[in-house]
């Protein structure tokens, strides 16, 4: 069974491989993306950093192994090469949700948010931070989100698909959702193999299924529960972006859409699931193919799709599959590559 630490190790390995394969990165030219002759600003919502945490914070705790992490020094050259102007960077392992020590949890998240802020100060037009919060303490998470935004310039916040197995649709997490909704902060959700749902070992076997099936599954259940448990109704200004094209939910929406017409469904929602997909839910472009993206746009609308690369992993997602898309207009391409995120992340054009 994969755990959050294994995910972390895989991130580090993939990052090392990516950088080794590159040319001397200092010599890189920056790709400038244009649509219809006009330069557009490409913004990436799905940009990981396995940030190492200093000994002064975790020495002597169960989190010592997270003192190791990935360097961020190569990120700007990578963005240059890929034609990404702005990366909304987040730390997505959520291992810090496993402590019941409020002070420790606060210290870890503060460090993440301060470090992201320092990179933002260094490269204000290239790097912005998505806040880390300690969701095992929903009130503290709300407080730290506010602090990250007002003090450290964060432009949103990142969460996993569950908090130690608990669904984020439970009312205990409402203080966090209320704060994100009130402040208009985009929530970027990133899964980690559906450990909350799966029997140990369930997705072992060929094909890397813990990732290939586990990740979209966790996102599917996360978004489905926010819909069916009424979280989106309670916080109508909330905007949540699901990684990897929102998992299976937008691509296979039909069954979810008819669920409330079936017996045993116990639905309390006020609208059809597809209406949340077209307003409060966003999905990134991690669907890789022209038809996959065409289908996402048909189900959600171009206004709900945002560019995401999953850097530093080697997935085949790049600006070209949007730029070359036959079914999208220039305006839709610009929305997807940057326009939607400029609004959501409050980036001046």
């Amino acid at each position, binding site marked *: 069974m994969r755990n959050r630490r294994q995910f972390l190790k895989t991130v580090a390995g993939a990052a090392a491989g990516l950088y080794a394969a590159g040319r001397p990165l200092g010599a890189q030219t920056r790709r400038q993306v244009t649509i219809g002759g006009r330069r557009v600003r490409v913004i990436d919502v799905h940009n990981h950093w396995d940030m190492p945490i200093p000994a002064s914070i975790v020495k002597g705790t169960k989190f010592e192994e997270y003192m190791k992490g990935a360097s961020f020094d190569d990120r700007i050259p990578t963005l240059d090469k890929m034609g990404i102007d702005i990366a909304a960077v987040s730390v997505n392992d959520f291992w810090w949700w496993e402590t019941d020590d409020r002070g420790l949890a606060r210290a870890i998240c503060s460090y993440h948010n301060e470090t992201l802020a320092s990179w933002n100060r260094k490269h204000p037009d290239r790097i912005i931070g998505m806040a880390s919060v300690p969701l095992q303490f929903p009130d503290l998470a709300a407080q730290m989100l506010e602090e990250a935004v007002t003090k450290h310039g964060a432009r949103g916040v990142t969460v996993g698909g569950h908090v130690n197995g608990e669904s984020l649709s439970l009312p205990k997490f409402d203080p966090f959702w209320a704060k994100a909704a009130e402040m208009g902060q985009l929530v970027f959700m990133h899964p980690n193999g559906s450990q909350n749902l799966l029997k140990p070992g*369930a997705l072992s076997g060929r094909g890397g299924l813990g990732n*290939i*099936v586990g990740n979209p599954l966790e996102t599917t*259940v996360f978004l489905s529960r926010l819909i069916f448990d009424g979280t989106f109704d309670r916080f109508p200004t909330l905007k949540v972006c699901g990684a990897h094209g929102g998992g*299976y939910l937008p691509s296979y929406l039909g069954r979810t859409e008819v669920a409330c*017409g079936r017996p045993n469904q116990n639905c309390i929602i006020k609208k059809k699931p597809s209406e949340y997909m077209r307003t409060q839910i966003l999905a990134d472009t991690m669907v890789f193919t022209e038809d996959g993206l065409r289908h996402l746009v048909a189900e959600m609308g171009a206004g709900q799709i945002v560019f995401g690369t999953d850097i530093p*992993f080697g997935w085949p997602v790049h600006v070209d599959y949007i730029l070359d898309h036959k079914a999208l207009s220039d305006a839709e391409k610009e929305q997807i590559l940057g326009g939607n995120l400029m609004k959501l992340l409050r980036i001046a054009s």
Partner: protein
Amino acid sequence: MPNRRDFFRTVAGAAAGAYVIGRGSAPSHAQTRRQVSIGGKRIRVIDVHAHTNIPIMEVVKGTAFEKQGGGNPGLEQRLVAMDKQGVDLQALSINGFWWYGIQDRGLARAVCNAQNEGLAQWVKKYPDRFVAMASVPLQFPDLAAEILQDAVTRLGARGTTLGGHVNGESLSLEKFDPFWAKAAEMGELVFMHPGGADNIIREEAWKARGDLGNIIGNPLETTYFLTRLIFDGVFDRHPRLRVCGAHAGGYLPSYVMRTDVACEVRNNANCANKKRPKEYLRSQILIDTMIFSEEGLRHLVAEVGVGQIVYGTDNPFNWPVTVDLVLNAPFLNNGEKEQILSSNLARLLRVTSSAPAGTGSR
């Protein structure tokens, strides 16, 4: 947690419910039969996804499986629903798969034999309305192969049905190859129906609004089942094998992109498949039309091709799936509509796609 017994009970309950919507408890000749035509030509609509049950109390009496002996095939009442829906022919299957839990070979054989013989009787009574898909005891792969052969040659079965796992074991394990080899050799279509992903999901995971054990659990089990057949090389070992996944093949065809790149991107993928995952979806894997929306169907056609999509209603459950989804699809030409509603399955089930001559007759 939905388990196979719950599913089974639900079938019986839904079947009972479905009869109420018919006119009276007996088949009513007053009912008009919907005659589906495409471009003025009457076509024979064939449904791959039609649940039923056969009472076998005399077989299981006194065993631990006595509770599973009941049930009502309800086929005469079902004809009323089929007439109303415009379904000419149903491929009936029994999908509880509770008999995979039987450890006694003799009992397992007797249960599957009784089901296959019971289904054959119904087919004999209404030969132009039903064909049967065989039940097999997959916990004994060699016996499953033998019973499949017997059901086809002696009882006229057209294909076979199975669940997404056998007591938690993936059907891609080599121990199941005797069954796959037989189905491939005989050219029998395999219809797979899930039971809420209880092979992979923690017990408490679906305690939630929205009936997620069905809404997510069923497509998930099918996704996992088909994905393992691909990555473990079952389709390569048996290139003539044809497997149909219920509920539009789960998530796999609609969200095939991540699966299609897995072997290149994931350094731990350890893939045994010889071709790209999508190539199996376009050749050996079939899926039904349980997708409910025009856009969903359009996407399926784009990903797997019209030749891989077959009509399925999930009768007697009350899902909003009708022939009109296919008939009104603006992106399909008449030939493609006929493929989906009729001719793909006619070939796979070895039935004629010619429409019945008379009207309203049974």
